[in-house]
C-alpha cells in the first residue's frame, strides 16, 4: 500500500499534441480514486503513465515515496486490470493468475497456495482449470482482478474494467470491486468514462477534460459544487441543464420568462451581484425541475415549457422539454445524447406525472438549487 503523487505531469506526443497538461494529483494510501472524463480526455494516458506503459514527458511521479518516472513497469510495485482483461487464452485460470509468480521463479507450492487463496476470495476455485474462452464476462473480469491481486501491489490501476460487461453485470461488479478494494485496502486508481461508476465507487473523483484536471473531490461535492460548467454537465445523469440568461434586478431573464432569485442566493454567492445587467449562465439539474401539477412542484415558481418526448422508466419519467432559452454547451460531447435535437432541457418527474408529449406545461423549478457560471470562463460563481 502506498501514496501515489503526480506533480506537474505532462505528456506531449511527437505531433505536439498535449495529451496531459500539468496534472497534479495526490492519491492517499488506501484511497479509491476515480479518473473520469469524456473520450480522449487523457484519463487512460494518465493511468498508463502511472503504470509505466507510456513515457512521462515532464513532471514527477512518486509511488510510496519513490520517484518512479524512470523505472520500468515491473519495478513500480503496481498491478493493472486492463479493459480487455488481457487474459492469456492459451493458459488456464490458474496459470493466468499465477503468471507473475511463475516469472518471478516462485516455487510451485507457494504459487498454488497463493492462487487458491485468491480464487477463494473471488469465488473462482471451481474454474481454476478452465480456459478464459469458457468463462463468462464477469468471471473473466474476476480472473483479471485475481491476476492483479496475486502480486500484492502497492497500488491497483484499473482501466475501464467494466466496460465490456452488460449493464446488469456491471452494477454487480461495481459493488464487488468496491467491496474488494475496501477489504484489501490497496490504493486504487480507476479510469472510467461512466460517471455513474465514478459517483458510486470512488472515495474521490478526478474529472479530466482535454488533458487538464478540472476538479478533484468527493462525489457529493462534485455533484453539489461543480467548479465549472463542464464538471456540472459531466457529473450527473441526465446532465445538468445549462442556459444563458441576463441578470436584471434580482431576476434571471431569458426569452419569455423570468426566474426570481431569493436573497439567500446572493448571500451564498457574493460574486453574483457583479453580474447585474450582464449575461450569466445558470444551471439546474433534472431532479430539481418538477411537474407543477403535482404536489411536489406546487411550492416552486414556474416557467413555460413544451414537452417534446417522455421516457417512462417506471420509477420516474425522463421528460424532454423545450423552454424559451438558449442552451449552453458544457463541453461534454456525451451531453448531446441527453437533449437530442428537438429539446433543450431535461427533467426528472415522478412516475404519477400525467404530462403528455406535445403538451404545453408549467415547469416548476427549485431556485435554491440553481448553479451559476461565468458566460466567458464557464467557472462557477
Amino acid at each position, binding site marked *: 500500500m502506498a501514496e501515489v503523487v503526480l506533480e506537474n505531469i505532462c505528456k506531449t506526443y511527437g505531433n505536439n499534441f498535449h495529451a496531459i497538461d500539468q496534472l497534479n494529483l495526490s492519491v492517499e494510501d488506501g484511497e479509491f480514486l476515480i479518473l473520469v472524463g469524456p473520450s480522449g480526455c487523457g484519463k487512460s494516458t494518465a493511468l498508463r503513465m502511472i503504470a509505466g506503459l507510456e513515457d512521462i514527458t515532464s513532471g514527477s511521479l512518486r509511488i510510496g515515496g519513490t520517484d518512479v518516472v524512470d523505472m520500468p*513497469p515491473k519495478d513500480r510495485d*503496481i498491478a*493493472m486490470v*486492463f479493459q*480487455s482483461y488481457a487474459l492469456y487464452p*492459451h493458459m488456464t485460470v490458474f496459470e493466468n493468475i499465477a503468471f*507473475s509468480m511463475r*516469472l*518471478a521463479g516462485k516455487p510451485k507450492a507457494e504459487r498454488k497456495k497463493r492462487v487458491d487463496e485468491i480464487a477463494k476470495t473471488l469465488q473462482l476455485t471451481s474454474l481454476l482449470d478452465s480456459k478464459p474462452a469458457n468463462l463468462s464476462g464477469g468471471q473473466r473480469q474476476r480472473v483479471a482482478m485475481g491476476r492483479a491481486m496475486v502480486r500484492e501491489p502497492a497500488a491497483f490501476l484499473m482501466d475501464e474494467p467494466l466496460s465490456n460487461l452488460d449493464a446488469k453485470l456491471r452494477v454487480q461488479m461495481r459493488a464487488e470491486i468496491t467491496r474488494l478494494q475496501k477489504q484489501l485496502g490497496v490504493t486504487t486508481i480507476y479510469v472510467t468514462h461512466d460517471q455513474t461508476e465514478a459517483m458510486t465507487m470512488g472515495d474521490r473523483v478526478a474529472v479530466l477534460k482535454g488533458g487538464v484536471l478540472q476538479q478533484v473531490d468527493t462525489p457529493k461535492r462534485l455533484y453539489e459544487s461543480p467548479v465549472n460548467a463542464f464538471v456540472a454537465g459531466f457529473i450527473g445523469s441526465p446532465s445538468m441543464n445549462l442556459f444563458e440568461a441576463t441578470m436584471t434586478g434580482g431576476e434571471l431573464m431569458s426569452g419569455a420568462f423570468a426566474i426570481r432569485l431569493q436573497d439567500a442566493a446572493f448571500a451564498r454567492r457574493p460574486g453574483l451581484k457583479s453580474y447585474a445587467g450582464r449575461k450569466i449562465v445558470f444551471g439546474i439539474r433534472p431532479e430539481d425541475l418538477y411537474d407543477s401539477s403535482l404536489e411536489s412542484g406546487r411550492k416552486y415558481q414556474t416557467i413555460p415549457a413544451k414537452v417534446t418526448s417522455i421516457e417512462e422508466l417506471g420509477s420516474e419519467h425522463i421528460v424532454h422539454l423545450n423552454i424559451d432559452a438558449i442552451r449552453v454547451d458544457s463541453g461534454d460531447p456525451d451531453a448531446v445524447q441527453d437533449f437530442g435535437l428537438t429539446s433543450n432541457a431535461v427533467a426528472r418527474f415522478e412516475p404519477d406525472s400525467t404530462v403528455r408529449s406535445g403538451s404545453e406545461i408549467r415547469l416548476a423549478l427549485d431556485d435554491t438549487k440553481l448553479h451559476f457560471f461565468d458566460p466567458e470562463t464557464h467557472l462557477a460563481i
Partner: protein
Amino acid sequence: MTRQKRSHHKLKRAVAPYLYLSPSLVIISLLMLLPMVTVIGYSFQNSAVLRRDPSFAGLKHYQAIFNDPVFWASLWHTLYFTCMSVIFHMTIGMIFALMLNSDRINPMLRNILRVLYILPWLFTAVIIAVIWRLLLEPNGVVNSMLLQLGIIGSKVEWFSSPETALHAVTFANIWAGYPLFMVSLLAGLQGIPKDFYEAADIDGAKAYQKLIFITIPQLMPIIISISLLDFIWTMQVFPLIWITTGGGPIYSTEVLSTYTYKLAFSSYNLSQASASAVVILLISLGLTLFYIRYQKAR
C-alpha cells in the same frame, strides 16, 4: 401450394448445392483424380504405357523399388531436405517477422526490409536454381567471398561434390521458401493484442519470456498449419533440384521426385516410376490427413 409443387421445390433446394459444386468436382476429377487412379493402376502392371496389353504384376514393382538402395537414399535425402527446409523456413521466417513487427526498428527501414525479405518469393523455381548455380559455382561470388574472408582454403564445388551438394540444394530451398512463414507469422504477430505484452511487462516478463509464454503460444496454430503445408510441398520439390544438380553427383541429391522422374523418363520404366509415385502419394496423403485432422480439431 399443392403437394406436387412442394416436393418439386424441396428437390430443387436439395439439388442446388450439388449443382454449384459440380463444375469444380468435374474439373478436379478429370485433372487430379483420374491421373492418380491411372498411376496407381500402372504401378500394378508390367510395361505400363509401353505395351497395349500390359499384364498384372502384383506388388513386383513395389518390391523392386524397396530393394533398390537408391530409393532408400532418395527417401533419406527427401526427409533431410524437407525437415531442414521446414525447420529453417520457420526459424528464419520467425526471426524476420519479429524484426518487421518490432517498434524498435525505424518504420522506413522496416518497409525496405519488408520488400527485401519477400524478394525470394517473387522468383520462380527455375530462376532461383539458376541464381544459386551462378552464385555457388567454383568461380562464383560465394566462393570468392569465403576465400577472401578466409573461411575456406580452396574453392569448393558446392553442387558437384557429394559431401556438399545436398546441403547446397537445401540451402537454396531454404532461401526460396522462408517468405511464406515470414508473411504468415507477421500477420499472426500483428493480431496479438498489445495488452498481452503490456500485462507481461507489468508482471516483470523479460523479452525471451514474452516470446516463450505469449508470442509462440499465440502463433502456434499458424506455425503448425504452415509447417504441415510446407512439409507437404517441400517433399514434392522437383525443378530446383533437377536444374541445380539433377539428383547427382552419384545420387547424393537424389530425392523421391527426381528418382521417380528418372525411372519414368530416363529408364522408361513407367511401372516402377508409378510405384515410386504411389509411395510419394501415400506419404503426402498421410501428412494431409494429419493436417485436415488438426484443422478440424481447431
